[in-house]
């Protein structure tokens, strides 16, 4: 296996409003040739897990050596779409070893995102149980969403995309498509979810009006929950989501359809929330992480978002009342970034989509 690819890189390209100084970045390649990687999860102890969409979870303990994790359920993977998606560690992972994975299950004409959990130990996922399945099923493989994040109260959030062909369902409170859903850590519906069904029981819906959310993050300090989502042609959004609120899709968007026609003539619509940031033209955000005690103190609290179309990692500093500061990192690599995650070591782990590279970005030694 190829040894370390090392480059010391000061790979910052200033974007709108960027003011921070160039930070020293040390880039090393931990793995190459990963097969359609989707999500990265650094574990305590230095091990790194990566999901591959065709259905493999791999463990990387040493640089350049990836081993398949046993016990992964069968996923629906067809035509480069769907498959194994995100993962999350239980907040008390060190005690209970619960690893949660999301994936697309079913067949081409009737499929849905599922959440399964199992105990991850010694390179194996055991006692795997499906704890949640999105309903209704859909006949497309696009826009699954499927990003996971735990809340402070140990409930689990998951983004659910609109399935592309079902965009109006994002406004239907009886459908989980185009929503962020919230469940307990064993898959039940929390009693304090905002919406009820006809019989008065809580539904899984936490927020409405999302298109294709591929980034979900809870700030452990403020407990704010961030979601970003793909627009169509323009209109990618970053939102702070709050219980029961409607984020507008498809009633309001800054994007237009791929044909150039309106999706909606409205950028804002009464009763829906405005995005914190929108990117038009699209950068195709995918994955989000936050610097909390990371290796760059000057970036404390900043958000980092992978960009597939924009081929960069976007650093974002939100500022009250003014446009956020934004900076493009690693742009000169020219690679589609599928996921980003800070590890416990404070380094930034970056997953490249097409080349299948896993990078570890650290401060220059």
């Amino acid at each position: 296996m190829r040894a370390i690819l090392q480059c010391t890189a000061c790979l910052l390209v200033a974007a709108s409003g960027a003011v921070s100084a160039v930070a020293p970045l040390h880039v090393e390649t931990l793995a190459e040739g990963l097969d359609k990687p989707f999500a990265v999860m650094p574990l305590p102890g230095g091990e790194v897990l990566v999901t591959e969409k065709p259905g493999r979870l791999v463990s990387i303990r040493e640089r350049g050596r990836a081993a398949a994790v046993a016990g992964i359920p069968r996923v629906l993977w067809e035509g480069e779409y769907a498959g194994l998606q995100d993962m999350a560690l239980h907040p008390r992972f060190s005690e209970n070893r619960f690893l949660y994975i999301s994936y697309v299950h079913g067949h081409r004409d009737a499929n849905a995102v599922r959440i399964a959990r199992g105990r991850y130990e010694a390179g194996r996922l055991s006692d795997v149980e499906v704890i949640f399945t999105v309903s209704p099923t859909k006949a497309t493989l696009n826009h699954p969403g499927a990003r996971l994040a735990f809340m402070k109260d140990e409930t689990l959030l998951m983004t659910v995309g609109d399935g592309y062909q079902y965009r109006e369902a994002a406004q239907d409170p009886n459908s989980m498509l185009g929503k962020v859903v919230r469940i307990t850590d064993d898959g039940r519906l929390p009693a304090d979810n905002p919406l009820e069904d006809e019989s008065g029981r809580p539904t899984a819906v936490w927020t409405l009006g999302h298109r294709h959310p591929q980034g979900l993050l809870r700030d452990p300090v403020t407990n704010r929950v961030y979601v970003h989502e793909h627009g169509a042609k323009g209109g990618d959004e970053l939102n702070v989501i709050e219980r029961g609120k409607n984020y507008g899709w498809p009633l309001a968007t800054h994007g237009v359809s791929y044909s150039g026609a309106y999706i909606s003539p409205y950028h804002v619509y009464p009763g829906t929330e405005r995005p914190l940031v929108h990117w038009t033209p699209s950068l195709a955000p995918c994955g989000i992480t936050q610097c909390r005690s990371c290796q760059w103190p000057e970036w404390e609290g900043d958000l980092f978002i992978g960009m597939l179309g924009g081929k960069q990692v976007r650093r974002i500093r939100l500022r009250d009342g003014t446009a956020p500061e934004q900076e493009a990192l690693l742009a000169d690599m020219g690679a589609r970034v599928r996921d980003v995650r800070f590890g416990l070591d404070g380094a930034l782990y970056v997953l490249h989509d097409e080349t299948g590279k896993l990078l570890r970005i650290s401060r220059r030694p």
Partner: protein
Amino acid sequence: MRQERKPAPSGVRIALGFIAAFGVTGVLASTTQSLLVLAALERAGAAFPFTVRLQVIAHDIVAHLYGGNLSYGLYILFGFAIAFPVAALLRRWLGVSRLVIYPLAGAACLAAILCVISLNFFYNMTFLEGTRGVSGYLSQLLSGICGGAAFALIAARRA
């Protein structure tokens, strides 16, 4: 004394018919798609005043016919450039009325365009959101029929 009008040369009539067919089909196809998209948004809870509807229709006609990486108008233009000569040949061989063969060619052309775009587009995704349902798809074929009829009436009439 009444003067007889000299018929336009066939090349001019064909060009005029082609432009009319393109215009009729493009405007109808775009407008029906816009109205179906707005109807779906209304069912999802949005409201659109009349002036906003007009704005959407006008915007979408321009976008479909001139804008975007995948210009629907360009597809229609090239599609008709193939469909109508083929229809003319078939008409000669089969002896079918021009008011039958050209509208059929227009519909077949739109069906082929939607098929080709969907094959070249992302997996299982619809290029024109208004065609997600049967009524939207049929409205595009109807637009092709109207364009074909326009061509038949203008370009293919006897001198």
